[in-house]
């Protein structure tokens, strides 16, 4: 497979801005507003319709997404976003105003209540809120719930324990929720070290945050003991749902002893990441934490209708209304389409694909047995150079240089969505980078729209707007 990314360049600039292509200045004589609030003229882009269409098509050609090729970014679960979900979310019946009275949006509320129930069943949780707008917002919400719960028990617990291999958002969420972070060193096998955990946990412990399988793709074999140690100290155990794709239909955080968890619907349930739309990070809790969930919450009444209400000790709002509804609707459609068997098949294939790819590539994978993702080592090569070399093969590279437990880490998560042929293509891209000499590695990529990026210059003199480009030229 040969790959060359489109490159629409005008001198040293890629596809120019619309306003640079063709603009018109409009003069305004008498605006019905005070003079200090208005201007006399404005210059706006004035493309013809074909120019407009081509502009956006070219921009899409000059970037790379999961619809361009495989995207094995470890820890991110970049799975295919089925077109069906977009169709469901653009159905006009889904476009309801959030302020409409409950009795006029029973269908919408029924979908929300059903999704709450399904997510609860998938995670082994008793109650679920759909409100948090992202995974990290879910972490923050979960920790606020833990805080409110402890306070109501008359306890002032100030610390959250987090393994050193955890996602960076865990540390940030704990700090934002007002906790002190206690970092837990990993054991030699890449898992939680029970002795270190016992030393870290105390009557100050509000919660332990953990993901399972962990960042190295390893299942925490002592998970029940880990939960017991924290529970015995009076703390709660929080599950970071980032790696839930490995467990779907196979095992449930609730059964392992977790009390609170978040779900990343853009990872596990195939809604778009980032630029594809807003996110959603539902949070599930055990029965005794349910009264603390954000308001409004949706429930089914005794007569079979649906209503919004404020839970008794609610922590309040973490986002507007019931959360990012259309994203949640996509997650609902995904779960509905797959069903129990489909979800279990998803995790089985995600684990199989990761193991097949790891077996195919000529890189050391120091920790195992792993599940839905693995962390290979680039050894004495710079992992960032390996990644840049892979770009020339028309694939997205893995996550690099993290976790730091592995030297020059290449963190790989192919997801269940890729076929054997695509995994072979990925393996070829890995091995080509593995065999490349230093010059080839350091001059890559050569076939992408933007070639070697000067990261140091980009960080030292950051320019985030197109106006800043002009300032720089002055």
């Amino acid at each position, binding site marked *: 497979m040969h790959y060359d990314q489109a490159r629409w360049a005008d001198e040293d600039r890629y596809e120019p801005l619309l306003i640079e292509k063709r603009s018109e200045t409009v003069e305004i004589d008498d605006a019905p507003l005070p003079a200090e609030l208005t201007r006399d003229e404005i210059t706006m882009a004035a493309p013809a319709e074909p120019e407009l269409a081509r502009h956006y098509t070219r921009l899409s050609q000059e970037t790379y997404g999961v619809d361009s090729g495989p995207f094995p970014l470890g820890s991110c679960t970049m799975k295919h976003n089925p077109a069906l979900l977009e169709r469901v979310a653009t159905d006009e019946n889904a476009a309801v105003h959030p302020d409409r009275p409950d009795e006029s949006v029973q269908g919408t509320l029924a979908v929300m209540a059903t999704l709450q129930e399904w997510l609860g069943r998938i995670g082994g949780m008793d109650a679920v809120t759909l409100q948090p707008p992202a995974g990290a917002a879910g972490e923050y919400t979960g920790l606020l719930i833990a805080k409110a719960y402890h306070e109501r028990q008359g306890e002032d617990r100030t610390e959250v324990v987090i393994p050193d291999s955890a996602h960076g958002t865990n540390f940030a969420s704990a700090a934002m929720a007002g906790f002190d972070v206690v970092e837990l060193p990993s054991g030699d096998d890449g898992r939680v070290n029970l002795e270190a955990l016992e030393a870290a946990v105390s009557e100050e412990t509000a919660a332990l945050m953990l993901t399972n399988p962990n960042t190295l793709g390893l299942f925490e074999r002592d998970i029940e003991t880990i939960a017991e140690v924290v529970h015995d100290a009076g703390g709660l155990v929080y599950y970071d749902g980032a790696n839930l794709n490995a467990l779907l239909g196979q095992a449930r955080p609730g059964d392992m002893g977790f009390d609170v968890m978040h779900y990343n619907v853009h990872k596990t349930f195939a809604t778009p990441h980032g630029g594809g739309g807003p996110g959603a990070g539902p949070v599930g809790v055990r029965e005794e934490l349910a009264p603390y969930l954000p308001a409004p919450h949706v429930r089914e009444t005794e007569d079979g209708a649906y209503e919004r209400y404020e839970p008794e000790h609610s922590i309040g709002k973490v986002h507007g209304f019931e959360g990012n509804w259309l994203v949640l609707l996509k997650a609902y459609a995904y779960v509905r389409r797959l069903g129990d068997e489909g979800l279990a098949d998803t995790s089985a294939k995600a684990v199989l694909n990761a193991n097949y790819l790891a077996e195919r590539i000529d890189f050391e994978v120091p920790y195992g047995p792993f599940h839905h993702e693995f962390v290979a080592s680039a050894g004495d090569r710079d992992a960032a150079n390996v990644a840049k070399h892979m770009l020339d093969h028309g694939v997205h590279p893995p996550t690099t*240089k993290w976790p730091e437990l592995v030297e020059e880490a290449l963190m790989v998560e192919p997801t269940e969505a890729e076929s054997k042929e695509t995994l072979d293509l990925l393996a070829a891209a890995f091995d080509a980078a593995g065999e490349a000499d230093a010059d080839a590695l350091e001059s890559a990529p050569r076939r992408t729209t933007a070639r070697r990026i000067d*990261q*140091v210059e980009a*960080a*030292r003199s950051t320019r985030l707007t197109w106006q800043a480009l002009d300032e720089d030229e002055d």
Partner: protein
Amino acid sequence: MSFDIPEELRYLDSHEWVRTTDGTARIGISDVAQDELGDVVFVELPDEGEEIDAGDDFAVVESIKAVSDVYAPVAGEVTAVNEALFDQPELINEDPYGDGWLVEVELADPDELASLLTAEAYADEIDS
């Protein structure tokens, strides 16, 4: 690879150095530290007049690879900060013991210097 470790300075094993002149201590990060961090892109320094204690994380150095706290080898009041670093963080890479210094403090307790590593002891730390 051999690193520059000036004889006349004192060090911490977390790779900070101190140069003292008449009760004032100038503090920076060592050649080893700048090499390990790679290209420095951002520096956060305390304000003049701020009191720092030995062992405090008083500054932050960010490179394209990592964000690192810098620890105070000695206690004292900050009397000067190297403002040139705000525009040219690369001075830390180019001249870690000279133009890449971070802050100057008025020594609270000159006896503290005795507890710091000599160049020789610091070099041994790095080798081990």
